[in-house]
């Protein structure tokens, strides 16, 4: 029995369970907490893919910052449990069915594609997914997207302040 496979199975099961809680929980606080655990288990999956840096960033930004923002807004609006579920309108039924159908199509297609991880030599194993190798590509090859991210963050900052604090 392969240790990596066992770890993958455990993390995948926990990820799917917590994602299911996110979409089914009645109170938004419960959804948010389930989302935090989804992010943590996904970080475990990223580690199994040797994406060391992205796993750390996932915990730092997603579980650390984005979820704080979500919880702040839930407390800001003081939302309790939603009293009523959404009415099962036609668009809602069709939407849910199309999500299930998409899962079926993707599952059939992807399971027919044989995909194995690349066989990396010891040299590549030591640098794959490290901070240094990612930084090297961001700051040389992907310079324009990197600077665009700063503009995106600037727009987000200005826009959020204008929208949220309209009455100053």
């Amino acid at each position: 029995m392969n240790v990596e496979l066992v770890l993958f199975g455990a993390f995948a099961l926990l990820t799917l369970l917590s994602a299911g809680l996110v979409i089914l929980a009645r109170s938004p606080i419960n959804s948010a907490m389930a989302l935090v655990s989804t992010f943590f288990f996904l970080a475990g999956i990223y580690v199994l893919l040797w994406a060391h840096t992205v796993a750390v960033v996932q915990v730092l930004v997603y579980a650390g910052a984005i979820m704080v923002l979500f919880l702040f807004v839930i407390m800001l609006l003081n939302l309790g449990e939603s009293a009523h579920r959404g009415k099962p309108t036609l668009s809602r039924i069709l939407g849910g069915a199309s999500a299930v159908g998409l899962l079926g199509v993707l599952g059939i297609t992807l399971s027919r594609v044989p995909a194995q991880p690349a066989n990396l030599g010891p040299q590549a194993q030591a640098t794959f997914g490290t901070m240094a190798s990612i930084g090297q590509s961001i700051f040389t090859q992907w310079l324009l997207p990197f600077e665009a991210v700063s503009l995106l963050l600037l727009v987000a900052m200005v826009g959020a302040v204008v929208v949220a604090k309209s009455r100053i």
Partner: protein
Amino acid sequence: MVPITYYLLLAAALFCMGMFGVLVRTNALVVFMCVELMLNAANLTFLAFARMHGDGIGHVSAFFVIAVAAAEAAIGLAIVIAVFRSRGTVNVDDIRTMKH
């Protein structure tokens, strides 16, 4: 070695769960959380293909996706706050002024 197909299937399942939540849930905040789930599924696909081909470009893409997700959460939640202020609800069924 875990076959990359398993990771891709997990990402597909996560994406479809997020899509289900976006289309079915009524609370705008939960809809946003489901969008985050879908973004994470995209990230997982990037990382799985990066591992399959053994290059780091997928990791760079995942970095940028995370930055975009942060900006999206900031601005989207600000819109939720503004809507709650003017309408007093975050239920997407009750916000239908634009829909004639």
